[in-house]
């Protein structure tokens, strides 16, 4: 059995890819091993520096899902306004979309376009 998947424009061999991944892993480890050896886990070193202010509770520093990609969603506000308006959750709208798309597809198939 061949491990190489031949595609119309090239090929894909996952084992070869893994070999490269291992090679890059070794290079990454070598760079990592040259890091600062004085770093100690679970000491004062590991605590965040907040200009002398006390560290907030874990719940407060947690980045919420709603905050992630805020900028992206804000930039596409207009697009999302339309998209979310379409998702009404109303069953009657579901059926209307079905009927509308059905009419368009049938129209195209019978040679209307």
């Amino acid at each position: 059995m061949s491990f190489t998947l031949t595609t119309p424009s090239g090929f894909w061999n996952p084992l070869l890819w893994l070999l490269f991944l291992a090679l890059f892993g070794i290079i990454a480890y070598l760079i990592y091993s040259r890091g600062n050896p004085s770093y100690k886990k679970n000491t004062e070193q590991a605590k965040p520096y907040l200009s002398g202010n006390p560290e907030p509770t874990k719940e407060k520093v947690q980045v919420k899902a709603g905050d992630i990609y805020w900028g992206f969603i804000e930039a596409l506000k207009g697009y999302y306004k339309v998209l979310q308006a379409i998702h009404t959750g109303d069953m009657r709208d579901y059926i209307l979309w079905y009927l509308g798309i059905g009419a368009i597809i049938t129209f195209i198939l019978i040679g209307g376009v």
Partner: protein
Amino acid sequence: MIEHLPALMIAVPLFGAFTAPLFKKHYKEVSIWAIIITGITVILSLLLAKEVVTGGIMVYVFGADKPTLVLPSGYSVPIRIMFEVDAMSAFMAISATLMSFIGALYSYSHVERETGLEKYYTLLMLLEVGILGMVLTGDLFNLFVFLEIAGIAGSALVGFRNYRGEASEAGIKYLIVSAVASLMVLFAIGILYGQYGNLNLAYIAKNVSFNMVDMIALGLLFTSFAMKCGAVPMHYWVPDAYTEVPAGINPPLLVATYASLYALFRVSFTLFANVVVDLARVGWIMSILGVLTMFIGVTMALVQKDIKRLMSYHAISQTGYMLLGVGVGLTVLHDPSKLAEFGRDAMAGGVFHIINHIIYKSLLLMTAGALFYVTGTRNLNEMGGLARKMPITAISFMVGAAAISGLPPFNGFASKLLIYETSYRLNPLLTVFAMVTSVLTLASFVKVFASAFLGPPLEKFESTREVPKPMVIAMIILAALCIIFGLFPNLVLDKLVYPAVDALINFAQYHSWGGLA
């Protein structure tokens, strides 16, 4: 025994479903019973696939003196209920049985706190019967019957947690959508029966004359199956249903959705394959629906805060890849040079993506179910720091997320690569949308991973532990499949996917009742 395999595929889960209520109030026993029955169907489907791949199309005529007797003496048209199993049907049957088994295994612990589990498992096995019937039948009316069985069982399972208002609402919505789609399918079947006096797929395909009424029937069938498989903009029921259904039912429900996709392919390729000019038009409609589905699905997923709803939108998005891959193949079906150059590979990408997606999306929905099981919430804003508490769930999630985003060497990559390369040949714009969708998919799963698993451990989850073993085993099996299918894509492509694609392309073979008529 081998010649009765198509019938046994239906009979075994049907027997399991009808006997499950006998285990009332014996919840452990009914769970084990469902695992055994679905496990047997996995073995049967593998035997069936082996038989079909080696021996060609299998025909099973119910009630005939011999199961292979399509035309008894004196008959010129097939009249009995008939199953016709080609490699595409066998491929779908394996997906259905495997996911029903995984679903039953996961449910063993996941729904142990619920009541009425004998009904739950009865419905699960009935859902399996519906899916298997849809993919094995060679008869349009039976396709409708099994579509109804799957629709009713699926909607009852969506509303299974009826103490939640949202579950009941989602169940009713799914029921209505299924009923409307099924009725339109029945109407289209009526149109075809009125013209050709027969319900056999192969018989109608050989005689279809492609007049305006036929095209109306094709339009109705196409739209109904597109709605049932969650193509945009008829996808609205999917997030409701996938979010509310217990996570153990997500895998078979996904396959039920893709059984409709199978029906869409079967109608487009087998039933109307001889429409030389208009088939390219059907292919373009399918490809454009695919692009819309993948892009709108993923952008809607990005803004969700409910983990299962987010993943449900991804399920919609991934359906777009399958529609695009097979749509590209359908567009060039009657152009032999383009079909050989990229059409066949495009279809292989689309069909391969079906099984890949069933595996990793089931895995992801199960990890979401595991998070819900442990935290009691699906709101990502309320989760955090769970990676250390639930390491296997976290790793399973990472594998699933990498696979769905198309990262090498996981299974999603190989199928997406085929789709990218081949859709580019038809129109580069199609590929641009497909690749942007993959990037956005990865982005939204980074969001889930960061908010649910990373970050400081929250006090409220201090006593949290990993989910019970059956749930862990089900997740590990699927994660392992994501890796195996990714490392050895040729194994699946050569043994299952290309035979399935060739079965769709070589429609003349299907039309001749497997060479028996």
